């Protein structure tokens, strides 16, 4: 069993003391300084809390306090969040691409089924009284310039 004896010297305005650790089991000899230092380093926390002090208010000369390392989470949190966002984005892209391909196939399928009067492109067929205009004789009518298609308005220079 070890016992600690204190000798307090009020040299400065700060409370300071030095102490000697003896091992009563081994003939009351002093424990070597290096062992004491190692023990203090390991148990600094307990010694501090015994005095209700902190590393800043209780200083051991020659034993510089080690700082507690920042808490490292076991799993890198950022990778988890990254993984979640990545999966969502890739799922979104696949969804849009697949639905786009399906729409495209459906459109092709539909336009293959319709009759000869319609083109495969999406231009609406202009009709006059239910008869498509390209059958009618357009020369008899007047082309109204206001309704010219976009391309014709912008003649290249």
């Amino acid at each position, binding site marked *: 069993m070890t016992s600690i004896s204190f000798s307090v010297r009020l040299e*400065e305005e700060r409370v300071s003391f030095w102490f000697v650790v003896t091992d009563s089991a081994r003939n009351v000899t002093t424990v070597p300084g290096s062992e004491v230092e190692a023990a203090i380093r390991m148990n600094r926390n307990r010694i501090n809390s015994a005095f209700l002090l902190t590393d800043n208010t209780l200083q051991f000369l020659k034993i510089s306090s080690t700082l507690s390392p920042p808490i490292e989470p076991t799993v890198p*949190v950022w990778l988890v*969040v*990254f993984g979640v*966002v990545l999966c969502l984005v890739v799922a979104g*892209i696949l969804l*849009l691409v697949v639905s786009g391909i399906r729409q495209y196939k459906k459109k092709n399928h539909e336009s293959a089924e319709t009759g000869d009067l319609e083109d495969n492109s999406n*231009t609406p067929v202009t009709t006059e009284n239910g008869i498509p205009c390209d059958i009618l004789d357009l020369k008899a009518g007047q082309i109204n310039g206001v309704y010219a298609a976009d391309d014709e308005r912008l003649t*290249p220079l």
Partner: protein
Amino acid sequence: MEKPRPLWGNPLQFVFACISYAVGLGNVWRFPYLCQMYGGGGFLIPYFIMLIIEGMPLLYLELAVGQHMRQGSIGVWKTISPYLSGVGIASVVVSFFLSMYYNVINAWSFWYLFHSFQDPLPWANCPLNSNHTGYDEECAKTSSTQYFWYRKTLNISSSIEEYGSIHWEQAVCLILAWLVVYLCILRGTESTGKVVYVTASLPYLVLFIYLIRGLTLHGAVNGLIYMFTPKLEQLANPKTWINAATQIFFSLGLGFGSLIAFASYNEPNNNCERYAIIISLINSSTSIFASIVTFSIYGFKATFNYENCLSKVILLLTNVFDLEEGALTADNLDSMKDYLISTYPNQYAELLPQIKNCSLEAELDTAVQGTGLAFIVYSEAIKNMEVSQLYSVLYFIMLLMLGIGSMLGNTAAILTPLTDSKFLSTHLPKEVISGIVCFINCIVGLVFTMEAGNYWFDIFNDYAATLSLLLIVLVETIAVCYIYGLRKFEKDLLLMLGHKPNWYWKIMWAFASPVLIISLFIFYLTDYIRTGTLDTTLRDQL
């Protein structure tokens, strides 16, 4: 006959797309800096004058041209004159350069966002050195936020020649950023139109939350006073006016072809005049709003650092001179220092190098712009707030929205001419073209994730889009006014909107804006030739 051109679902989508594009990172990280450097509240005077002389007219011009010709930038200028198709190609090339490096900023925002879910925030504390007796050397010399930015995020090498390896974490974030952009532009205006509702409005919500939080922070008032006290003598400095003109010019994103692309998806009778005014006013007010938030945060950070500095000095003096606890306070520090100098001259002289002179003005004066402001200064302020994780997440989501909104415009500027071209659109569906563009940009962007990547980023930021844009917009204005003809343009506007443009627009288009751009161009060119580097005025504008 070809498919009808895709249109915006409603005019609001168009407005939101333009706002989302124009309101970008430059509003948050460039304007507050300019305000501080060039006269505080007084800077608003040249800012608004330039808005009226060049901002609104040039914005209206680009929107009207795009809406009328209904094509991307290459097609538009080819239609005006076949000799001018080079202007369109220049716009596309500049947009390509911009999208290459701009998305790296989004990658950084993602990185910080993902790291915000930890308690404490990873940039709040320095890591320890190897034997745990103190902090890591690099970190102790600077600060934990700077360490996190330069070492953990960028892992920056000491010079541009030392390439180093690709930082895989950044590369992965960059790939994610490009996937997000691809998701938004995949279906063209159909998907972009929905996304811009979020990217345009969310930043305002976050800025509002930050405004409330910022104004209630301790010391915020110091920052606001410092910023808004007008220093009217700066108005005599020509650099003030040049910076105001440059900021308006680049903040609106003119010359990239994005505005032309967005407007080309409009209904032909959309009132783009009204929207041009609305968009430019919203852009400028957002800059002012963001700088109020930024300066309250500055004030908080500066006050916090100042008080920390003071308490460190007090602790040092108390320890060395064995004074009572509480004998030294912030108020009596100066008088006590004089007393100590006179009573213990030798000891004080030894101590002198360690005693820092704490000054609030010095802390406020550290005007920062660009990535330094966004990622170092803001994160330093955030780590000192309560519930810092929440504010951090909000802030980086806001940066992401701003960045992605601008990227949507950039990619639209590249993709619209490509999908307009008959050759490409008959052979490849637009999803594949978008995918190829995103893929190429992503691969090239991996350069910026190397250890020397930030130096390359600075080069691109300074030179890629700056002088060339001035030239492009100058040629655009001259082309529309003099080659196409102002009268013909007037008639086109009459057809589209139902009324002719009034004399203000015509004078600005024909005289004021070209003259202003020419003078800006001459100034920057001569400055570049004289000093050998491009004026830092132009950087970080976008």
